[in-house]
């Protein structure tokens, strides 16, 4: 399993970078925090701050152990452990980004297959051109437009947050509130992810339809639905999954931006607030852990390909 080894090496390299780079800085967190500000520290104050924040923390070995023990440092600005901040924000990001990927994969796949089946119709032309335009519009633009129209002008959806603050609600009302807050960020992300999935499925399905086994399947007298999905779409699914792995690392960017636009309390907003306040331990923790999570997702996708297409074991596609 050369690939697993390569991914483990990459993960280790990232951990080492996050350990070594801040130590390469001239000075440390204290000078980075106060060096460019208006505050002038006396020698004693500086020594005290340094002892309070950094202390003597040992080498790379103890860094890894502390990482594994969820001891990721202490936030200067939010005054709480980084791990606590991280795990408070993580569920919201997973809910938003996971749901957006799920919806856009399912809708993009079925729409792509159906549209490829109805080749050369007005519906197909319209869908393909619409999706091509949408593919070019970045999340920043769709996000802000939706925010201006549906939240600030029409007032249909809340403009910030993930649930109604300080409200004592029943379970059902609470879930409804969460869904209500989720709509706009979710729609923005789906609009960003959907066109890629749709166009990819449609393009590979158009090639699949011409294959001889499709003619065979039809000649056997199978129902159109069975021909379309059991024989055709399964082969169009593979590029979708392969490309998903390739695109995921870049799609993270959009999720960060969308969370910031709607002030959704996920990792993106946490990271944004940390950047604004130059809260270096939080930036370091969130960046490292979320990159490791993306690495893990992409590595596990490698095994999904093998289930969808057994041929990959013999020759790696691409």
């Amino acid at each position, binding site marked *: 399993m*050369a*690939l697993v080894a*390569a*991914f483990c*090496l*990459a993960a280790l390299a*990232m951990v080492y970078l*996050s350990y070594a*780079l*801040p130590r390469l*800085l001239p000075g440390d967190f204290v000078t*980075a925090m106060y060096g460019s500000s208006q505050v002038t520290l006396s020698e004693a104050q500086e020594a005290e701050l340094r002892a309070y924040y950094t202390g003597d923390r040992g080498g790379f070995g103890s860094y890894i152990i502390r990482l594994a023990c969820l001891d990721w440092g202490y936030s200067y600005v939010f005054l709480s452990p980084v791990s606590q901040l991280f795990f408070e924000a993580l569920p919201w990001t997973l809910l938003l980004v996971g749901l957006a990927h799920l919806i856009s994969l399912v809708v993009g796949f079925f729409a792509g297959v159906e549209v490829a089946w109805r*080749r*050369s119709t007005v519906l*197909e*032309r319209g869908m393909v051109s619409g999706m*091509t*335009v949408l*593919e*070019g*519009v*970045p999340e*920043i*633009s769709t996000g*802000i*437009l939706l925010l*201006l129209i549906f939240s*600030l002008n029409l007032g249909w959806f809340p403009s910030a947050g993930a649930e109604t603050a300080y409200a004592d609600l029943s379970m059902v009302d609470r879930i409804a509130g969460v869904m209500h807050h989720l709509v706009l960020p979710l729609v923005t992300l789906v609009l960003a992810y959907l066109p890629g999935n749709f166009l990819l499925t449609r*393009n*590979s399905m*158009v*090639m699949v339809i011409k294959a001889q086994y499709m003619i065979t399947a039809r000649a056997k007298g199978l129902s159109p639905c069975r021909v379309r999905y059991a024989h055709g779409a399964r082969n169009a699914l593979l590029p979708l999954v392969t490309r998903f*792995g*390739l695109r*995921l*690392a*870049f799609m*993270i*960017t*959009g999720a*960060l*931006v969308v969370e*910031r*636009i709607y002030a959704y309390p996920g990792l993106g907003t946490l*990271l*944004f607030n940390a*950047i*604004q306040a*130059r809260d*270096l331990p939080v*930036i*370091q923790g969130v*960046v490292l852990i*979320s*990159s490791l999570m*993306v*690495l893990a997702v*992409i*590595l596990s996708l490698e095994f999904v390909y093998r289930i969808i297409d057994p041929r990959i074991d013999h020759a790696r596609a*691409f």
Partner: protein
Amino acid sequence: MHVRFRETSLKDPLFMTGIGLAVIFMVISLLGPFLAPFDPWDMSFVPISPPSETHYLGVNDGGQDIFSELLYAVRNTMLFGFISAFAALGIGVILGASAGWFGGFVDMIVMRIADVLLAVPAIMILIFAAAFFRPTPWTLALILAGFMWPTISKGIRAQTLSLRQSLHVRAAVQMGGGGFYIIRRHLIPEMFPLYLIGLAAKAKMAMFMEASLGFLGLLDPTRKSLGLMINYALNFYYMDVWWNWLMPPILCLSFMIVSVTFLAISLERILDPRLRAALSGRTP
């Protein structure tokens, strides 16, 4: 890879729209400093004044002319995109052609590194670098290029593998041409169409990244950037300035990215005959 580029491209509406928009933004970014009526760092105007004869798009909260800011911001975003895309293309072509030509150990190492780099979220590394070291935008563009070359080099490698078998390359080998000579003299010029597709795709990614980094507040705040303008304007959405302050950078950014997206998609279908049947949208 012979294609009748002129005939097919002129008939392609996507390509024409893409190239038209690209030319407009090229002109804006080349002539920006001459077109701008004011110095975009000049803070001597009345803050948050509406559009007028002298200030076409009004003045922002810092007393700077928004129209001049916009011209400089478009220029910076374009430049960032192109530097990053060209660097990624250069690395990707050289490494991809070497991996495909030499094979064996070189191939394994380059492709393994490519696999791993594809899995690492570039934005996270950029945020890390920008927050800790505050590098110049050009350094960030080059770091980003370091994460964008793998997709290019995979395509180039696949093409190199098929070109290896072609007659003229085998003739060059017979004449005693060395590896680097053949890569430079035969492989690299031969694959030119692939570079255009890669360039457009990577420029799109890089412009999007630049806007996002600016929007998240990670770029130099004195440098004009579309993302930064959107970020500042969003703080004043309640003041009825959205149409003259928030909209222009959003529209510029969208049209710029739409333009390179159209170019990438249409070039792929014009230059890659295998795909033409699949992509054209009508039965051949």
